[in-house]
C-alpha cells in the first residue's frame, strides 16, 4: 500500500474492537509538537545577538505564524472533514517540520524573509491544520466526554512549550561555537524530530466507523445539545448569531490572556521592583505555563459536568474579578497573591481554548465541528495581535504620562476586566440554534 493511499479516509476507519484510548496519544503527538510555537521566543535573543535582526522584526515571525494558523484552519477545515484527519495531520507534519528547515536555510544565507516564509507562513499552515485535525476526531470518539477528550489534546498545545523551550536551549548549548550560536543545528534537529513525532500521530489516528458509539452509551436528550444525527452545515454556520457570539467569546477571552502571557516576566519585575529577580520572573512564567496547560484539561473536563455555557460564565465572571484585584495585590506588595491571581487567570485562558470545540459541537453538532472550529480560530488570529498591542501600548502610554512603572499596568488590568465583562454578555446571549439552520442525517 502506498503512503498516499494510506492517507485516504477509508484506510483510517477503525475496526470494531479498536480501543478509543489510542486516539488521545495520537492527538497529543500532534499538539505537543506544534505547541512549540509558544516557545519560539527563546530564539529571539540569540537571533538578535548573532544575526543583528531587531526584536520587533523577529516578533513578526510568531505573528505571521499565528495569522497563518487562523487562516489555514479556516480554509483547511472543510477539506479535513471531507478527507479525514490523517491527510491533514500528514500535511501539517510536512509544513511544520518544513518550516524549521526553510528557516535554517534562511539563517545559513542570512535572509530574514526566509524565516517569515519558513517558520511564519509554512509553519503557520502546519500549526493551523495540526491544531484542528485531532479535535473533531476526538469528539467523535468520545461523545460521552467531549470536553475531557478535546481538553486532553489542547492541553498538549499548552504543554508543547514546556518541551520546546528547554529542548531549544539544550540544542543551542550543545552546538554553539565561538563564531556561531548553534541555532541552525537546533532548527534542523527540531524540524526533523517534530516531523517524525507528528507522522507517528498521523498514522496512529483512526476515525470511528459510521454509527459507532461507545459500549453502553445512549445519548441522552439534553436541552442545550444537538442530537448526534443533527448538525448545522459549515457553510450555514456563519449565518447564525451563535457562531459570531462564540467568535467574540473566544476573541475576548484570548485577548485578555495572551497580552499578559507575553509580558508576564517584565510585569512581575516592574510591579515588585527590587524583590523579584530575572530568574524568579522566569519561574513565574514557568508557573503560568503549568496553569495554562493544567487549566485546559481541568476546565474542559469540568464543562462535561456543568455545561459549556456555565463554564464560560465562570471564566468571565471570575476572570474579571481576578483582573480587577491585580492592582490591589501590587499595591499590597503581596507576591503570593499576585502569583495566585495570575495562575488562576491563565488556567481560565487555557480552559477557554480547550472548552470551545465541545461548545461548538453542542450547538452545531459533530459532523462539521472540525471545519467550524477552524473558522472560529480566526478569532485567535485577531486576539494574537490585539492582546499584546493593548498591553504594550497602554504600558507605554502610562509611562509617558509619568505613572510609576509599578503602577503602569493598573489601567490595563481594568481594561482586561472590562473585556471579560463584554465576553460575559456575549456568552449570556448564546441560545439554541434556530431549527431552520439544522439538518439531519438520513
Amino acid at each position, binding site marked *: 500500500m502506498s503512503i498516499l493511499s494510506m492517507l485516504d479516509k477509508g484506510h483510517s476507519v477503525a475496526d470494531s474492537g479498536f480501543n478509543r484510548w489510542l486516539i488521545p496519544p*495520537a492527538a497529543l503527538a500532534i499538539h505537543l509538537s506544534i505547541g512549540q510555537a509558544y516557545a519560539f521566543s527563546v530564539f529571539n535573543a540569540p537571533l538578535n545577538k548573532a544575526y543583528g535582526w531587531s526584536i520587533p522584526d523577529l516578533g513578526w515571525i510568531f505573528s505571521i505564524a499565528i495569522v497563518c494558523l487562523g487562516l489555514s484552519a479556516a480554509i483547511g477545515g472543510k477539506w479535513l472533514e471531507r478527507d479525514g484527519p490523517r491527510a491533514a495531520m500528514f500535511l501539517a507534519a510536512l509544513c511544520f517540520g518544513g518550516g524549521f528547515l526553510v528557516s535554517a536555510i534562511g539563517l545559513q544565507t542570512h535572509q530574514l524573509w526566509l524565516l517569515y516564509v519558513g517558520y511564519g507562513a509554512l509553519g503557520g499552515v502546519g500549526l493551523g491544520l495540526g491544531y484542528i485535525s485531532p479535535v473533531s476526531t476526538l469528539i467523535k470518539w468520545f461523545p460521552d466526554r467531549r470536553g475531557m477528550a478535546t481538553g486532553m489534546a489542547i492541553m498538549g498545545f499548552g504543554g508543547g512549550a*514546556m518541551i520546546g523551550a528547554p529542548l531549544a536551549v539544550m540544542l543551542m548549548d550543545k552546538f554553539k561555537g565561538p563564531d556561531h550560536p548553534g541555532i541552525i543545528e537546533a532548527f534542523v534537529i527540531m524540524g526533523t524530530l517534530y516531523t517524525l513525532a507528528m507522522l507517528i500521530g498521523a498514522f496512529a489516528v483512526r476515525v470511528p466507523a459510521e454509527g459507532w458509539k461507545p459500549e453502553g452509551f445512549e445519548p441522552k436528550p439534553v436541552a442545550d445539545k444537538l442530537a448526534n444525527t443533527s448538525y448545522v452545515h459549515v457553510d450555514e454556520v456563519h449565518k447564525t448569531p451563535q457562531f459570531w457570539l462564540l467568535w467574540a467569546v473566544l476573541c475576548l477571552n484570548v485577548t485578555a490572556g495572551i497580552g499578559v502571557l507575553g509580558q508576564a516576566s517584565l510585569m512581575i519585575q516592574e510591579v515588585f521592583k527590587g524583590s523579584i529577580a530575572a530568574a524568579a520572573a522566569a519561574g513565574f512564567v514557568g508557573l503560568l505555563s503549568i496553569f495554562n496547560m493544567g487549566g485546559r484539561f481541568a476546565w474542559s473536563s469540568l464543562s462535561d459536568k456543568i455545561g459549556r455555557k456555565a463554564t464560560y460564565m465562570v471564566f468571565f465572571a471570575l476572570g474579571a474579578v481576578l483582573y480587577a484585584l491585580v492592582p490591589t495585590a501590587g499595591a499590597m506588595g503581596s507576591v503570593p497573591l499576585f502569583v495566585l491571581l495570575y495562575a488562576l487567570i491563565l488556567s481560565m485562558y487555557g480552559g477557554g481554548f480547550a472548552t470551545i470545540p465541545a461548545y461548538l459541537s453542542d450547538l452545531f453538532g459533530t459532523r462539521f465541528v472540525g471545519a467550524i472550529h477552524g473558522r472560529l480560530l480566526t478569532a485567535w488570529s485577531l486576539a494574537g495581535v490585539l492582546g499584546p498591542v493593548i498591553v504594550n501600548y497602554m504600558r507605554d502610554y502610562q509611562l509617558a504620562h509619568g505613572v510609576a512603572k509599578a503602577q503602569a499596568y493598573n489601567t490595563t488590568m481594568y481594561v482586561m476586566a472590562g473585556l471579560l465583562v463584554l465576553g460575559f454578555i456575549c456568552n449570556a446571549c448564546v441560545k439554541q440554534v434556530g431549527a431552520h439552520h439544522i439538518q439531519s442525517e438520513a
Partner: protein
Amino acid sequence: MSTKIKGLLLWAIVLLPLAWGVKQTIVKTMALFS
C-alpha cells in the same frame, strides 16, 4: 506486535517528553519560591 504493546508505546512516546518538559519547568519555577 500486539495492540496493547503498540498502545503503551504510543502513550510512552508522548508522555515521556511531556514529563521531561514539565520537570524542566518545575525546576525553573522553583526560582520563584527561593
